[in-house]
């Protein structure tokens, strides 16, 4: 999600001087086994090196011990070895174990980071992903020796297509933004195939930053569409801007304000009427699984963030996966290879294959078949929950968000942190810290820091840009009512203490 404003420019060691600015690290979380003095150091693994130490032992040279320059011309050989660390295994383990304790993690506390869907990461998923048949499978293994993997991918394609309400799925993109890239390139291919050269892509002013960035990378101009007083797309503005130069409208629904746009059918009509495609940024899909489908809303292309709604752990910034689902008219252009199912002639049951023979395909966006390890986890999740469970997850995500919102509307909070759009929200909602800033002199960022002291990861701050001093709160369905209550109490306490 959006970066916090305090992440200021600072020097990158290896990058030389970029100008070193002091960042405000106003609170810090102590970790077990470390004193303040020790933390102070924040020594890197390089600084813990000592010449001659090592962990790795190289296997014996069981082939002729030919001098290297007889194998490779000396000019190509490295002169100065890379200055990698020199440490023994115990130090290596200790170093990374210790610094790990300087992170806040989802298994230890509430993490209501809006737009990020920090839901529980079931550990079954790690177990199945680690099975040697998955984790030790080479990506170029022949189809006939990778039937289990291909079947899993095929089944996942089907499941995602059903959830999106769009029949054709490519699992290839590596994250949400990569899915966006695929989607806008597909749009381009679609128009060009029809001999239609378009120049613009529309994005609402509430959009996530990756949307306009993607548009630019695809050679289109970004045109912003406004938001109406209810937090939805400003239909007038949309109508005004939707012309035959518009290739696509990129939207998320519910949008980044956590609101479902009730005009979605009208929006789709406006966009389709000018021959443009409608793109669904799936970051907020966790609100509507089994409740409403982007395909049914009129979207042509959808991306999923498997690291959001489908429990791939975020890993401190990845890996993720950003599969896309598309409508019939987009299908010819979809990335390749695709996993297809062939009924075998000999009655052996179905056979799964990688299909490269897709002449109109936009091609590849990366190597191999995508982030398969992520597919395994998400597939395990879908198999665990099933149709009912997915729907229930969305229902409870929305229930949790509305409950937390109700709690935060209570006296003592709402005066300083009013909800930006006072409607039933979906899986998340936006508060505005503007009154708090004005009346208590506290910025949203200060509140965020204080929440850290209370043991909570703060919500997303300063996004969406539309709302002043925004605080975007997404509790997810896997939190208990008790946790939500405690969080609401903490916010109230902080405001009380500030008065």
């Amino acid at each position, binding site marked *: 999600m959006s970066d916090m404003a305090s992440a200021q420019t600072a020097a990158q060691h290896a990058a030389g001087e970029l100008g*070193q600015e002091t960042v405000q690290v106003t609170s810090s979380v102590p970790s077990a086994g470390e004193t303040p003095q020790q933390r102070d150091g924040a020594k890197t693994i390089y600084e813990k090196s000592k010449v001659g130490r090592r962990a790795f032992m190289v296997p014996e040279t069981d082939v002729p011990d030919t001098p290297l320059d007889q194998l490779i011309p000396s000019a190509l050989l490295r002169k100065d070895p890379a200055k990698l660390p020199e440490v023994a295994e115990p130090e290596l383990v200790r170093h990374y174990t210790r610094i790990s304790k300087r992170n806040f993690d989802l298994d230890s506390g509430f993490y209501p980071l809006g737009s990020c869907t920090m839901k529980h990461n079931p550990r079954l998923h790690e177990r199945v992903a680690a099975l040697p048949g998955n984790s030790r499978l080479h990506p170029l293994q022949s189809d006939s020796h990778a039937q289990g993997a291909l079947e899993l991918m095929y089944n996942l394609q089907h499941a995602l297509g059903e959830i999106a309400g769009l029949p054709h799925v490519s699992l290839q993109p590596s994250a949400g933004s990569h899915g966006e890239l695929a989607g806008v390139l597909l749009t381009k291919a679609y128009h060009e195939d029809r001999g239609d050269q378009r120049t613009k892509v529309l994005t609402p002013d509430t959009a996530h930053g990756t949307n306009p960035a993607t548009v630019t990378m695809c050679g289109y101009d970004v045109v912003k569409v406004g938001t109406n007083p209810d937090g939805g797309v400003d239909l007038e503005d949309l109508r005004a801007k939707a012309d035959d130069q518009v290739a696509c409208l990129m939207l998320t629904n519910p949008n980044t304000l956590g609101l479902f746009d009730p005009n979605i059918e009208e929006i789709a009509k406006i966009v389709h009427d000018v021959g443009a495609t409608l793109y669904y940024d799936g970051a907020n899909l966790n609100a509507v699984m089994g409740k409403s489908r982007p395909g049914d809303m009129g979207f042509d292309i959808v991306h999923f963030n498997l690291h959001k709604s489908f429990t791939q752990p975020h890993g401190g910034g990845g*890996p993720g996966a950003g599969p896309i689902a598309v409508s019939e008219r987009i299908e010819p252009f979809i990335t390749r290879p695709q996993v297809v199912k062939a009924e075998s002639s000999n009655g052996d049951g179905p056979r799964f294959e990688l299909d490269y023979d897709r002449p109109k395909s936009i091609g590849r966006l990366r190597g191999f078949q995508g982030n398969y390890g992520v597919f395994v986890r998400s597939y395990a999740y879908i198999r665990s929950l099933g149709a009912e469970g997915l729907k229930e997850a969305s229902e409870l995500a929305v229930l949790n968000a509305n409950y937390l919102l109700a709690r935060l509307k209570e006296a003592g909070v709402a005066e300083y942190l009013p909800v930006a759009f006072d409607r039933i929200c979906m899986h998340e909602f936006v508060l505005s810290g503007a009154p708090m800033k004005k009346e208590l002199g506290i910025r949203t960022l200060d509140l965020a820091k204080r929440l850290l002291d209370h043991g909570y990861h703060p919500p997303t701050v300063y996004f969406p840009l539309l709302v002043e001093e925004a605080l975007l709160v997404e509790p997810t369905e896997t939190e208990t009512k008790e946790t939500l209550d405690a969080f609401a109490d903490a916010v109230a306490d902080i405001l009380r203490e500030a008065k």
Partner: protein
Amino acid sequence: MSSYTAATQQDIEEMLAAIGVSSIDDLFAEIPEGVRFDRALDLPAGKPEQEVFAELNALAAKNTSADDEISFLGAGMYDHYVPALIDTLLGRAEFLTPYTPYQPEVSQGNLQVMFEYQTAISELTGLPVSNASVYEGPSAVGAAAYLAKLANGRKRHLVSRGVHPHSRETLETLAVGYGTTMEEVPLSAGITDLAALKEMLSDDVGAVILQQPNFLGSVEDLAALAAAAKEHGAVVISSCDPIPLGILEPPGSLGVDVAVGEGQSLGNRLDFGGPSFGFFAATQEHIRRMPGRIAGETRDVDGRRGWVLTLQTREQHIRREKATSNICTAQALNALAGVVYLGWLGKQGFVELGELLARRTAYARETLTAIDGVTALHSQPVVREFAVELDAPVEAVIARCQDQGVNPGYALGRDYPEFSNGLLVAITERRDRAQIDRLAEVLASAIAAERGAVEVAG
């Protein structure tokens, strides 16, 4: 059925009352009827953990993994040994579950990991600036081409035919968006044809894109290729296999401006192709055009050392459409595996590993080309992978070898019709001499059998 949720019926009722609605459906009332989904999703019912495990275990068992055969497959991903400590560290919730480090106070661990990782990549590539990871190899090559486009605006990009086919295809796909065109520089005797490159170069060439070692396993003369490109002001991009950088001169010392590559071989599992990570390093002049995130060192209010994301206003904030890339979620956990792996190898080990692979590769090449029906596809220096040509249909030979429990490598003909019976053989530290000898034995008899079969059929 499970949704990992906690709400009991009583909870739900209390929560609905607090909200002031009477049912969960009321919360979805904003969804217009026309787009409400009324039926159940057409998905199988959910099931208990043990049954999901059993189902996925059965699927996994249908795959032939690198545990099930002696595999010489490489071509971009390699069967290196991943030390156990990596599993342990990556399994820690503190690394596994956080989001991208937006709150530096509670993300010092991840930020420091990024910083250490960047340092390691700089060391490997000999380039001063590294980002904190991109998706994976081929898309990193694509991102590098975008950097070149931003840097000089030129539209002609030249790419060596020695670059991984997946990277070339990715470049083609993205060029449509970038508004660039890709032209292929041919190979000659297994390496990029320098003369042809010079021929193609002119001052409208924005980037020259190479790979080290190239897809056929050859070590390229990067210095010469880069020098030619530089004469015309083109940005020199090289995709690099990180493992041989223990013994090969780093791209940064050879005139390469942007070094990228697939990080899988650094402590990541095969995972049927992902997730792994892509690395991305460049010269100082490109720092403000780098995609993705960079962690930097800083001091907190008390003067204590700390780490933050730098150059972050580029995306998503102020100049959103001017962003140098759209990447957001990257591959932090995989990059962590990479830096831990490099720390585990250590300064000496990294060199020793490169040396071992070079020697074993030389031995394997010699042993295989001594087989009747196998010839070297080229005679360029190789360090961890090499190409041969078979005097028999390569796909059939591979199938015969696999039946004997040996996967002899990758059939080049899929991507290089000109080497229709080419075979690309990869070596790691897990493939010892005995296994190489076993490969030779199995390959020899597969070729012999295939020739026999062809004769009979013929």
